[in-house]
C-alpha cells in the first residue's frame, strides 16, 4: 500500500516536471551558418549564367576582330614583297600568259551592246 502511494507520488512529481523541461537556445550563429551554406551551394539562375557567358563571348569576339585588324594593318604596312602588282602589272602579266597585246586599251563598253 505504501509502495503504491510512493509510486503514485513519484509519477505525479515527474509529470509536474513536464512544465519545467528546459528550453534550449539555438546557436546564435545559426543564421550565419545557413547563409554560408546557401551562398556556397546556391546555383546561380540560368539567365545569369547565360548572360555572363554571352558577355564573355562578346568580349572575346571583339578582341579577336580588333587583333585581326591590327595584325592586317601592321602586315600590310610592313609588306615589302616584290609580288605587289598594280593594275597595269596584272594586265601585262595576263597578256603574256594569254598572248594578247596588253598595250591596247581594252574597253568593256561594247560588251553591253
Amino acid at each position, binding site marked *: 500500500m505504501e509502495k503504491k502511494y510512493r*509510486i503514485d507520488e*513519484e*509519477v505525479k512529481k515527474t*509529470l509536474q*516536471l513536464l512544465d519545467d*523541461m528546459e*528550453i*534550449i537556445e539555438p546557436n546564435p550563429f545559426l*543564421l550565419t551558418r545557413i547563409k554560408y*551554406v546557401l551562398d556556397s551551394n546556391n546555383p546561380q539562375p540560368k539567365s545569369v549564367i547565360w548572360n555572363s557567358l554571352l558577355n564573355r563571348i562578346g568580349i572575346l569576339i571583339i578582341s579577336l576582330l580588333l587583333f585581326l585588324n591590327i595584325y592586317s594593318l601592321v602586315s600590310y604596312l610592313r609588306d615589302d614583297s616584290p609580288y605587289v602588282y598594280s593594275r597595269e602589272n596584272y594586265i601585262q602579266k595576263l597578256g603574256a600568259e594569254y598572248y594578247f597585246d596588253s598595250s591596247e586599251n581594252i574597253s568593256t563598253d561594247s560588251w553591253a551592246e
Partner: protein
Amino acid sequence: MQEIELINKLKNKDEDAFKIVFQDNLKKVFNTCYRIVNDKQTAEDLTQDVFIKVFLSINDFREESKLSTWIYKIAVSKSLDYIKAQKRKKRFAIVTDFFSDKKMKDDIPSAGKDNPERELDNKERIKILKEALDSLSENQRVAFSLSKYEEMSYNEIAEILDTSVSAVESLIHRAKKNLEKKLYNYYKKHL
C-alpha cells in the same frame, strides 16, 4: 510586413525577408526538432536544413496554410526522417553488436536501486521523463510536444501531421495516458 508580401519577397530570394522568417520561426523550429530528436547538435543541423529548404523551395509553397505551419511541417518531417534513419542504424548496430558480442549501454538512471528509501532528485526525474517521452510513438510524441511546448492549436497540429483534428485529440490523449502508464511501470520496477 504582411505575410503575402513576405512570401512574395521570399520567392524573389530577398535576404531581408528570409531574415525575418528565420527570426520569427527559429525558436519554434529548433525546439520542435529538439523535442523529437532529443539532441542539441542534431536539432541545430536539422534547423539549418529546414531553413535552407524553406529558402530553396519557397516556390513550392502553395499558400494553402500559414507560412509558419508549412515551416513546422518541414521541421517535423525532417526530424522524423532523421529518427527513422537512426532506427535503421540502430537495428543494424544491434545485429553487428550481436556478432561482435557487445552489450547495449543502459543510460537510464535506476531510481533508488541502491537505496530504495532515497528520494529522487528532479534531475533524475527529468531524465526518466525524457526516456518515457522518447518511448512514445512518433506521432504521439510530436503531437504532444507541439501542443504542450509550442502551444499550437489542434488545427495547426492536424495540418502539420496531415491528419484530422479528432485524430490529434486522440493522439494527445493517448500520449498522456501512455506517459503515465510508462512512468508507473518504471517506478513500480525500480522503487
